[in-house]
């Protein structure tokens, strides 16, 4: 698709005289898997929160799904999915009830909820657990469920903030299968991660250092550019230049 999912120009977030995000500019194409990398404290989460309409930018311009991040946050919210570092399904609701709640608030009808819910539960192999409280599921299952719920309304873009933190390698692999599926369905995926193997799965990645984007290209081109054998080396080369201490 030619239309851009995210257009970002000189986007800045300042707290006092601290530039959490310092004039970042980039575009993300529709259907792309965009990796958003950076050390802890580099400003990834802050940037993502601005794009999701959770935080007002200090200056700059950005549109998400064609809507302005300053004025049209509610429109943005109807067109995106979001999964944060903190697990955010309701632990005291069952798998089904969570699907019903989150799907429902995006306007899915009862019939759609039933169909989508069944489909999702079959896909994740949660038939037996459908009536269990989400709090009793293992972490990896929770994360896969949270992702599936975040895209249940077929958003144009899904934002994932370190979705695989603390998850075992097998489950991470399965998680990325879900991400590929979503991208194949035309959903743009905007993902932050600290796992460099995951970075390799992305179409393009950006690396943030001290609130700036210091590198942006496909993993292959970045390795070439930094004359590195792996994404790990690329990341080290950039992260070492950081002046800010990690949090």
């Amino acid at each position, binding site marked *: 698709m030619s239309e851009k999912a995210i257009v970002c120009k000189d986007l800045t977030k300042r707290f006092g005289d601290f530039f959490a995000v310092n004039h970042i500019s980039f575009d993300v194409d529709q259907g792309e898997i965009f990796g958003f990398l950076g050390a802890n404290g580099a400003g990834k989460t802050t940037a993502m929160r601005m794009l*999701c*309409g*959770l*935080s*007002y930018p200090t200056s700059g311009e950005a549109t998400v799904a064609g809507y302005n991040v300053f004025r049209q*946050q*509610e429109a943005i*919210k*109807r067109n*995106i999915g*979001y999964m*944060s570092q*903190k*697990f*955010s*399904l*309701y*632990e*005291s*609701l069952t798998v089904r*009830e969570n699907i*019903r*709640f*989150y799907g*429902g*608030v*995006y*306007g899915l009808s009862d019939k759609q909820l039933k169909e989508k819910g069944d489909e999702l539960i079959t896909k994740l192999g949660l038939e037996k657990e459908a009536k269990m*409280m989400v709090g009793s599921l293992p972490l990896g299952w929770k994360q896969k469920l949270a992702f599936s719920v975040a895209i249940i309304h077929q958003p144009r873009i899904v934002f994932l903030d370190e979705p695989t933190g603390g998850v075992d390698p097998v489950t991470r692999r399965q998680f990325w299968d879900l991400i590929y599926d979503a991208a194949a369905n035309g959903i743009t995926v905007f993902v932050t991660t600290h796992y460099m193997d995951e970075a390799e799965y992305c179409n393009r990645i950006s690396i943030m250092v001290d609130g700036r984007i210091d590198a942006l290209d496909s993993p292959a081109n970045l390795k070439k550019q930094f004359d590195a054998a792996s994404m790990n080396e690329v990341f080290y080369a950039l992260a070492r230049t950081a002046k800010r201490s990690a949090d």
Partner: protein
Amino acid sequence: MRTLRLLLEKEFRQIFRDKGLLPILFIMPMVQLLIMPLAANFDVKNINLAVVDRDHSTYTQQMVSKIASSGYFRITGYYTDYTPAMHQIEREKADIILEIPAHFETDLVRESKASVYLAADAINGTKAGLGSAYLNTILGDFNNEIRMKWLPTKAAAVGTIDITSSNWFNPEMNYHLYMVPGILVLLVTMVGGFIAALNIVKEKEIGTIEQINVTPIKKWQFIIGKMIPFWTIGMVDFTIGLLLARYVYGVIPVGSLLLLYSFLSIYLVALLGFGLLISTYSDNQLQAMFVAFFFIMIFMLMSGLFVSVDNMPPWAKMITKLTPVTHFIDVVRMIVLKGSHFSDIKMQFLYEIAFAVVLNGWAILNYRKTA
């Protein structure tokens, strides 16, 4: 509407699955209602009286036995000197000393005039004040009896003012009748205020609020979705409390239940708005709990439940007007005991509606989906 329904489904499910919360919502208030009115009794009884009798006459004996038979006093000892009686007060064995001077009877007979001396331990001011007042009345009675005996005709001619009082709306001065409705308000306030204050903060703590904030759920939907479940619980708690009041304490509302519940429904909106407001300002449950505790404490002490508002200085009266609880306690007492009508409680209605609008409006304004 659909969003609101989904929010309500979610809230009710969460509340009824919270095994720790349910007893707090439904059982704790009832236990309090069963215990507190029995203890919160301001009648002063069992005042310990030390008698220093330097006269040892028939009259002093008559007088002391009259005091003892009043039911308010317990004679803890007879002394011939003041010092040991004072020791009793120092050791908290006695509350009041009644000192009868030597020649009490002689003076009374010869000069038609005698005096006694009262010394009260004023650390417990209520006991000292009321005890002295009771003693005064009893001694006054005693005085009259003597005069009647000696001067049957003359005394009648002199004439004394005899005060007969009747206690309206609570003829037997039954303390339960006065306290139970107030305590009922206290319970609804504690449950509603705390639960509402803790709720949104809890979502902040576990991070689900951020997920809510990226959905198209509107602010007012979210707040109302929080409000309705607790409002319902408040109504249920009040109803259970009213039934307990009726069957345990025999407190049957004289006035209109419809009026009582109309007021309750507005009061709950105001109270829950207050709780939600705290919730939107706090970062964690501990903080919310302390802030809510601070305010609810003030509300309670200033509400007229334990201390009469009429006795307060003007600035304190102003504060009582600015707490939603005061008006509700007023109204509950008026409707339950007096059977007041809408026209009697118009002002309180207005106050409560103002609280409801301001507190909830503030809470909705202060809850931000985008920071």
